[in-house]
């Protein structure tokens, strides 16, 4: 029984940290909006998605407290994200080649 410590130590996150994360998120939002004005061809969507991923990383780790959770939670979310990635990429095996 590796994960049987039901009343784990409580993490109280400072308000200050939340405000910092919030400001970063706003900054990234600004970046993504201003970058979208520049025409970078196919890279536009890549950059938009990278910035969105960075923002989600902040939300997951700080707002959703993933950094304070057990390793099991991190494995879980990797499994979920990898599954989704597999669904997308295998679907594109069909679409991105000559049909």
């Amino acid at each position, binding site marked *: 029984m590796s994960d049987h410590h039901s009343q784990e130590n409580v993490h109280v996150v400072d*308000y200050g940290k939340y405000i910092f994360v919030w400001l970063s998120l706003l900054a990234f939002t600004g970046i993504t909006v201003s970058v979208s004005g520049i025409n970078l061809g196919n890279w536009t969507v890549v950059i938009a998605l990278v910035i969105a991923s960075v923002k989600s990383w902040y939300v997951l780790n700080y707002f959703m407290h993933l950094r304070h959770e057990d390793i099991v939670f991190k494995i879980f979310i990797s499994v979920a994200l990898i599954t989704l990635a597999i669904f997308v990429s295998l679907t594109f095996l069909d679409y991105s080649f000559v049909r």
Partner: protein
Amino acid sequence: MSSTAHTHVAHRDDYGSRMGMWLFLFTELILFGGLFIVYAVYRYMHQQEFHLAAQELNTTIGMLNTIILLTSSMTAAMSITALQKGNVRFSMSLIVVTILFAGTFMVNKFFEWSAKIHHGIYPGSKELVMRPEGEILYFGLYYVMTGLHALHVIVGVTIFVFVLVFMKTGTVNQTAYVKLENAALYWHLVDLIWIFLFPLFYLIH
């Protein structure tokens, strides 16, 4: 039949509750993931038309809504800290602020949709059916995806209202706050999804 009312399932497992919540969030994630697959495939097939159609969305409203949701996510997260510190009133007001932000988001959404519908762009409209296939698909997905997201906003608000009641009655308190944590987790997911919806629909230039 002797019906002894047992105290069935006595022990509390906050860790387990959060684990269950995360698993549920994965299903929500994949639910939207299915839509993102549809979006990706159609955008790949109709790049030009997606670009053209996206010009018609109002980036300012989209950005405003992004900021609103990010801020509400922060207040939701802060409400947990407040409760952990024993500051129930402050925690409750933070939740109320979160709900108000959610309301503002919905009002913006309402104006945005009505403007589109006013211009005759809605599923099955004459104006839309005349357009190229890619644009029909773009607006179809726009309505479905932002619509489903809006539905999640409403659900999130409902959950927060319940949590407020629980805080009032004391079921959720300084030592037992996993319900608030789970409500906030749900709300952050709503935020997360919007983080992707925003660039994918509003920022294709």
